[in-house]
C-alpha cells in the first residue's frame, strides 16, 4: 500500500544558532526566577503565610512539570544537547556571561549570595543627587573637619528620611559611586583610544626637572627615569581624573540608569546570580550528553581519551563549583595575642554577620618580618622626594654618586655591596672615644654634660635618672643644651681661646623665634622659601601671600573639648620649648579674607592630609624654632680647647673655668656637671652579628621567626671603585636606633646609610600559630591536639586546615604588633574542583600533545613497513 502524502514522516526540527540561543536564554531567565523563589523560601524564617505556600506550590509544580517534560521528550532533549549549535551556544554564552561580569564592576562582598544593592525607590532623586555630591561621612581616612562637615550636610539633606532609608541611601550611594567611577574610567578610555583627545601633559615644571637632574647624579640614570615616569603619571593622572569626573557629571543620569539596569539584571553580582548558575547547569548537562556518546571502550582510544578526560574534568569542576556555591562561607577572624580563644568570625568581612565554628581558635604566636632596606642620603642635596630604598640580599650591589671620568663617561663614586644579612644582631650602648685628630670618621669635638636634677627633698638623683647631653659645636642640631626647667641654655664652641664663644653671644639675633619654610604646591613649587621671623614680622611669601607672625609660643597646647588653644600665662622666656609654634595670619594676594593658622614645629605640613582641611591649602608652611635666638632664659657658651681646658662664658662676659666632674655655675635648680670632653670624638658602635641565627625563609617551622631581635647587615662601602683611589670599608648596621646602630655616616660626611625594616610597604612575610580549643566537661575551653606547631602555623601560601575549615594569613597592622588577621573559609567543594582542574590539564595534554606524537609515530611506522597492519 502506498502511504498518503499527508502521512509522510515529520522531519525533526533542526536547531540553529538563533533557536539554540533563544532556548538557553529562556532557560537562564527561568532559572533566575526559580532561584529567586527558592532563595525567598529558604531564607524566610517566619511562619509561612499564603504567599509562601503559593510560591512553594508554583515551585513544586514547575519542578514536576519540568521533570515530566524531560522524561516524555527524552529523545528530543538528548538531540537538543547533542546538536553542535547548542554546544557552541552554551560555550559562547558562558563566555559572554563571564565577560558581562568584567564589563560591570561587581559589588563589594558579591561572594556573599545574600548581598544586594539596597533599593532607594522611596527616596527622591533630588535627595539622592544632593547626597551623592558629598564625601563619605563614614570614611575615617578623611580629615576630621571634612568628615564632620560632610556629616552635617548629609544630616541636613536627609532630614525627612527614616533611619532605614538613610542606611539604604548610604549603601546605594557607595555602591553607585564605585560603579560610576569604574564605568566612567572605562568609557573615557574607550572613547579616547591611544590618548586621543585626553588632556595633553604639559611637561614637568622646570624646578622638578632640575631636581631630577640632581637626583640622577646621585642615584643613576635608571632611577631617575623611573622616578620621572612616576611623576609624569601622577601629574597626568590628576588631569585625566578631572576629565573623567567632568564626563561623569555631564552624564550622571545615564550612569545611574546603567547602574539600576545592572542591579536589576544582577549583572553586578553576575557570578553568584541564578541565571549564571542555570547557564552553567545547562553547560554541565550538555557536556554530559556529549561525553558519554560512544562506547566505554572508545573512550580509552587514543583518539578519544584526551577529549573524554577534558570533559570529565570540566564536569567535575562544575560539580565542585556547585557545592562551593551552595556551601561556602568565608570571612575573617580578628586575632590578638592578648586575647583568649574565639569561635566566631565575621562572615564576608561584615561585623554584623557573625558565624560560629564548632571549635575555638587562639593565637599563640604572631610574627611579621619586613624587608631589610637601606636608604642612602646625601646631606648636601636635601631632596624633598622620598629617597630610593634598596631591599637587601647578599650579593646585591648598588652604584651611586655618578661623575664623568676622563673620557666623559659617568662612573659611580660609591659602590655598596651587601656582604651578609643576619637575622639577629645584638647592640650594646655605643660609647664615645677619642679618635685621631684627622680621623675622617670622627664626629668632631664633643662635650658631655650630665644633668642631675634634685629630688623633691634636695638629694641628687641617681646616675640612671640623670640625662646626658651631648654638645657638638660642629653639628647644628647638637650644639645646644636647653634646661628642661627653662632657666638656662648653653651653646658650645671648640677653640683655643674664648674669643669665638664671646662672638657667639654677641651675635645673638634677639627676638628671632625661628624660620618659616613656605612653598605654593599648585605652582609646582619644589624648593621652599626659607625666611627667619620675629613676632610681629610681616613677610612676603610665595604665590603673593602676605604672612604676619601674630604670636609665637615655645609650648603650644590645645584643648580638644573646647577646640581652643590653651595659652600659657607665663612669659615666653620662662617656657621650655617642648612644642614650639607660631600663629600666622595669611593674607592671599587677591585681598580675600585672611586665614589664621597655627604652625607647630613638630608637624610636617608636607603631608597632604594635613593640608586638605586648610582654607588656603595651596600654601604649605613649616616652622622651625630657633632655640638659641628666640626669647628665653640666660645664654652661656661652653668653650674648650685641645688641652682639655674648659670655660663657661656668660652673656655678661664672665669667664669661669670648669673642670671635669665639676658643676657648671648656672641659674636654677638643675645641676649640670661637665662629664667628658673630646677633641675629636668617635662613636664606638657595638654591634654584634650572629652568623648562626637561622635563615627564617625556609619551609620548616622556626621559632626564630617570631623573635623581635634586631637584624643586622654587613655592607662593603667602596669609594671611587674601579680606580686606583678605591677605598673600601666594612660597615655593620642593625635595625634599631639604639646607639644609632641603624645609621652610618661616611667619614667625609658626603653621604650616610640608614638601615631599617620597611614596615610601610607589604611585608616580607607574616606567620601565625594557632591552637584549637573545645569546651571540656566543665564547660571551660580545653586545648585540642591539632598537630605540632609546624602543622598549626599559617603562612601566606600555606594555610591551616582543621575540621573542614581553612585558615590563612590575610593581613596585619604595623601599629598593632599583637594583631593578626586570619581569613576563614569553609568550602567542601575545593578538592573536587581542584581534581577537575588537574583532569582538564591532563586531557588537553593527551589530546594536543600526546595524541599527535603517538599518531605520528604510528604513521611513520606504517609508512616504513608497507603491507603490515
Amino acid at each position, binding site marked *: 500500500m502506498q502511504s498518503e502524502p499527508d502521512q509522510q514522516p515529520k522531519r525533526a526540527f533542526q536547531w540553529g544558532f538563533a533557536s539554540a540561543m533563544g532556548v538557553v536564554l529562556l532557560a537562564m531567565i527561568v532559572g533566575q526566577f526559580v532561584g529567586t523563589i527558592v532563595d525567598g523560601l529558604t531564607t524566610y524564617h517566619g511562619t509561612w503565610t499564603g504567599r509562601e505556600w503559593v510560591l512553594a506550590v508554583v515551585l513544586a509544580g514547575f519542578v514536576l512539570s519540568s521533570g515530566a517534560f524531560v522524561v516524555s521528550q527524552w529523545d528530543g532533549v538528548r538531540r537538543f544537547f547533542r546538536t553542535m549549535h547548542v554546544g557552541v551556544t552554551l560555550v559562547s554564552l558562558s563566555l559572554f556571561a*563571564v565577560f558581562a561580569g568584567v564589563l560591570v564592576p561587581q559589588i563589594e562582598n558579591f561572594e556573599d549570595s545574600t548581598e544586594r544593592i539596597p533599593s532607594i525607590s522611596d527616596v527622591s532623586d533630588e535627595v539622592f543627587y544632593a547626597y551623592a555630591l558629598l564625601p563619605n561621612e563614614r570614611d575615617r581616612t578623611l580629615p576630621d573637619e571634612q568628615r564632620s562637615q560632610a556629616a552635617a550636610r548629609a544630616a541636613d539633606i536627609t532630614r525627612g528620611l527614616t533611619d532605614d532609608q538613610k542606611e539604604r541611601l548610604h549603601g546605594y550611594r*557607595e555602591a553607585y559611586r564605585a560603579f560610576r567611577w569604574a564605568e566612567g574610567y572605562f568609557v573615557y*578610555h574607550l572613547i579616547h583610544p591611544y590618548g586621543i583627545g585626553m588632556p595633553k601633559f604639559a611637561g614637568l615644571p622646570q624646578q*622638578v626637572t632640575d631636581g631630577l637632574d640632581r637626583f640622577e647624579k646621585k642615584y643613576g640614570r635608571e632611577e631617575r627615569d623611573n622616578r620621572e*615616569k612616576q611623576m609624569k603619571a*601622577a601629574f597626568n593622572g590628576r588631569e585625566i581624573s578631572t576629565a573623567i569626573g567632568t564626563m561623569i557629571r555631564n552624564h550622571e543620569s545615564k550612569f545611574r540608569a546603567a547602574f539600576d539596569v545592572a542591579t536589576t539584571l544582577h549583572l553586578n553580582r553576575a557570578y553568584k546570580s541564578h541565571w549564571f548558575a542555570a547557564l552553567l547547569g545547562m553547560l554541565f548537562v550538555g557536556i554530559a550528553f556529549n561525553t558519554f556518546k560512544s562506547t566505554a571502550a572508545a573512550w580509552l582510544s587514543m583518539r578519544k581519551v584526551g577529549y573524554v578526560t577534558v570533559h570529565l574534568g570540566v564536569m567535575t569542576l562544575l560539580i565542585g563549583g556547585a557545592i562551593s556555591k551552595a556551601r561556602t562561607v568565608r570571612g575573617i577572624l580578628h586575632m590578638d595575642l592578648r586575647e583568649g580563644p574565639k569561635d566566631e568570625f565575621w562572615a564576608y568581612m561584615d561585623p554584623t554577620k557573625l558565624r560560629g565554628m564548632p571549635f575555638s581558635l587562639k593565637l599563640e604566636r604572631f610574627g611579621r618580618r619586613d624587608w631589610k632596606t637601606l636608604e642612602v642620603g646625601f646631606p648636601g642635596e636635601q631632596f624633598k622626594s622620598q629617597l630610593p630604598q634598596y631591599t637587601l640580599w647578599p650579593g646585591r650591589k648598588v652604584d651611586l654618586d655618578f661623575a664623568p671620568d676622563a673620557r666623559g663617561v659617568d662612573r659611580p663614586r660609591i659602590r655598596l655591596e651587601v656582604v651578609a644579612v643576619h637575622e639577629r644582631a645584638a647592640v650594646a650602648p655605643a660609647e664615645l672615644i677619642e679618635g685621631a685628630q684627622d680621623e675622617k670618621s670622627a664626629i668632631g669635638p664633643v662635650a658631655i654634660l650630665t644633668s642631675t636634677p634634685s629630688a623633691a627633698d634636695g638629694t641628687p638623683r641617681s646616675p640612671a635618672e640623670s640625662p646626658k647631653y651631648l654638645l657638638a659645636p660642629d653639628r647644628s642640631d647638637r650644639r645646644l643644651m636647653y634646661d628642661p626647667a627653662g632657666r638656662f641654655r648653653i651653646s658650645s664652641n671648640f677653640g683655643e681661646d674664648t674669643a669665638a664663644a664671646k662672638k657667639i653671644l654677641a651675635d645673638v639675633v634677639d627676638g628671632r623665634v625661628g624660620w618659616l619654610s613656605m612653598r605654593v604646591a599648585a605652582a609646582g613649587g619644589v624648593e621652599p622659601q626659607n625666611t627667619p621671623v620675629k613676632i610681629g614680622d610681616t613677610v612676603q611669601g610665595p604665590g603673593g601671600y602676605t604672612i604676619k607672625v601674630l604670636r609665637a609660643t615655645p609650648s603650644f597646647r590645645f584643648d580638644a573639648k573646647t577646640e581652643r588653644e590653651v595659652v600659657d600665662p607665663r612669659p615666653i622666656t620662662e617656657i621650655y620649648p617642648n612644642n614650639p609654634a607660631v600663629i600666622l595670619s595669611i593674607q592671599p594676594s587677591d585681598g580675600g579674607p585672611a586665614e589664621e593658622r597655627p604652625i607647630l614645629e613638630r608637624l610636617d605640613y608636607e603631608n597632604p592630609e594635613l593640608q586638605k582641611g586648610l582654607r588656603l591649602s595651596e600654601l604649605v608652611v613649616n616652622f622651625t624654632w630657633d632655640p638659641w635666638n628666640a626669647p628665653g632664659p640666660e645664654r652661656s657658651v661652653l668653650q674648650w680647647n685641645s688641652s682639655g681646658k674648659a670655660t663657661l662664658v656668660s652673656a655678661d662676659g664672665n669667664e669661669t673655668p670648669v673642670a671635669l666632674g665639676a658643676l657648671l655655675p648656672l641659674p636654677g635648680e638643675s645641676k649640670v656637671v661637665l662629664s667628658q670632653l673630646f677633641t675629636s670624638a668617635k662613636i664606638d658602635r657595638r654591634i654584634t652579628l650572629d652568623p648562626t641565627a637561622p635563615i627564617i625563609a625556609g619551609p620548616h617551622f622556626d621559632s626564630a621567626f617570631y623573635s623581635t631581635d634586631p637584624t643586622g647587615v654587613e655592607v662593603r662601602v667602596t669609594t671611587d671603585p674601579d680606580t686606583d683611589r678605591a677605598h673600601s670599608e666594612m660597615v655593620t648596621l642593625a635595625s634599631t636606633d639604639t646607639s644609632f646602630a641603624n645609621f652610618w655616616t661616611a667619614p667625609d660626611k658626603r653621604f650616610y646609610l640608614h638601615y631599617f625594616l620597611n614596615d610601610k610597604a607589604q611585608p616580607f612575610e607574616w606567620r601565625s600559630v594557632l591552637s584549637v580549643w573545645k569546651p571540656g566537661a566543665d564547660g571551660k575551653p580545653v586545648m585540642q591536639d591539632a598537630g605540632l606547631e609546624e602543622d598549626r602555623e599559617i603562612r601566606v601560601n600555606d594555610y591551616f586546615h582543621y575540621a573542614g575549615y581553612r585558615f590563612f594569613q590575610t593581613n596585619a597592622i604595623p601599629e598593632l604588633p599583637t594583631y593578626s588577621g586570619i581569613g576563614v*573559609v569553609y568550602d567542601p567543594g575545593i578538592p573536587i574542583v581542584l581534581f577537575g582542574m588537574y583532569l582538564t590539564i591532563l586531557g588537553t595534554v593527551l589530546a594536543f600533545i600526546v595524541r599527535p606524537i603517538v599518531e605520528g609515530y604510528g604513521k611513520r611506522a606504517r609508512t616504513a613497513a608497507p603491507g603490515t597492519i
Partner: protein
Amino acid sequence: MNPIQSLFDGDVALSTRLTSIADVLCIVGVLVCAVSAFMRKADGQKAALVSRLPILVLVGTFATMVTVVAARWKEVNHFPSQTMSEVLTMFSFALVAAMVVLHVALDLKKRGGGWAVLDDVLVLLVFAGVFATHAWIRGLSTAQRDLPPALQSYWFPFHLTALIFSYATMAIAAFVCLLYFVTRFWSGVFLGGQSKKTQWITLAALTLVPFVHIVTLPILAISGLVFWLVVKTGKMPRGEQLVALEKSFDDVSFKTFAVGFPFLTAGLWMGAFWAQEAWANYWGWDSKENSALITWLVYVLYIHLRMLGGYRGSKAMSVLVAGAASVFLTFQLFGYMPDSQKSLHRYTDDGVQPQEGQMGPAPTKSDDQARVEPAAK
C-alpha cells in the same frame, strides 16, 4: 633613554643593556629574514647560505634573552615577572622561544609550496614583535619591587611561564592567520577572484579594530607592497592555489594553536591552585582571572567549531585571531575594564585616582610607589 644610549651607560641596569643587544639582533634578524625570503626559490629548492641566517639570528636572540632574564632575576632577587616591564620582557622572550620550538615542531620548509618563504616571514614578524615590545617597555618603570607574601610561592614561575608561553604561541598562530588573510586580500586586489563583501569585511577587520590594528595595519600595508612586487613575478597565488593555501594555513595555524593550548590550560588552572594555597579561594572571580578564562573559552569555542562544526579555513582562522585579541585584552587592556579597578592583578601605573568626595572609595590596589606627589618633593 634610547637603546643605543643604554648600551653604553654605566648607571643603567645590566638587563636593560642586554635588552638593547637583543634589539640590535632583532633589527639584523628582520633584515636577514627579508633578504632570505626574497632569495628563496618558491619551489623549495635548497636555500642559499643566507637562508640559514634567520634561524641562527633567532637562536642568538634567544640566547641573549636568556641572559636578559637571568640578569634581571639577579637584579631583583626573584623570578622577574612582577612588574609590567618584567612581564613584557618575559613575553618577548617567550615569543622567541615559541618560534624556536615551532620552527622545529612544524618544520614548515618541508611543506613546500612557498612555506619556506612564509617561515622566514613568520620569523621576521617575531623579530618585529620583540623589538616593538621592547620599545613599549622603555616607557615603563623598571624599578625593583619587593615580592608581596602572596607572590612568594613556587607556583609563581610555573604559572607565569605557562601562560606567557601560551600567549606567545597563540600570537604566532594569529600571525599565521593574518598572513593568510593579507594574502587572500591582496590576491583579490591585484588579481580579482574575491567577492567585494569579503574584501570589505577583511579590510575593515584589519584596519578598524582598535589596538588590534596596531599589529594588523602595518602587516597589511607592508604586505601590500610585497605582493605588488610578487605580482610582477607572476607568483601571486590565485584560484585553486589560494584554496590549497587556505587549507595549508589552516593546518599550520591549528598545529601552532595545539602547541600552546595545553600550556594555556595549565597556566590558567595553576593560577587557581596557587590562589587556593594563598587564600583558600581557587577562584575569586577577579577580573584578571575572568579575562584569562574568557581567552580560554574563546579557544574552547574554536576547538568546538572546528571539530563539531567542521569550521575550517578562514572561518576557523577568524576565531583564532579573535582569541589572540582576547589574549591582548587579558594581558594589556584588562586594567581599563570596569571590574578591574579593584583587581589584585592590576598593573596600570597611570596615576589616575578618583578625586575625594566625588567618586567614592579609592578603588585600586595598585602599588603605593606609583602614587607619588607630583610637586615633588
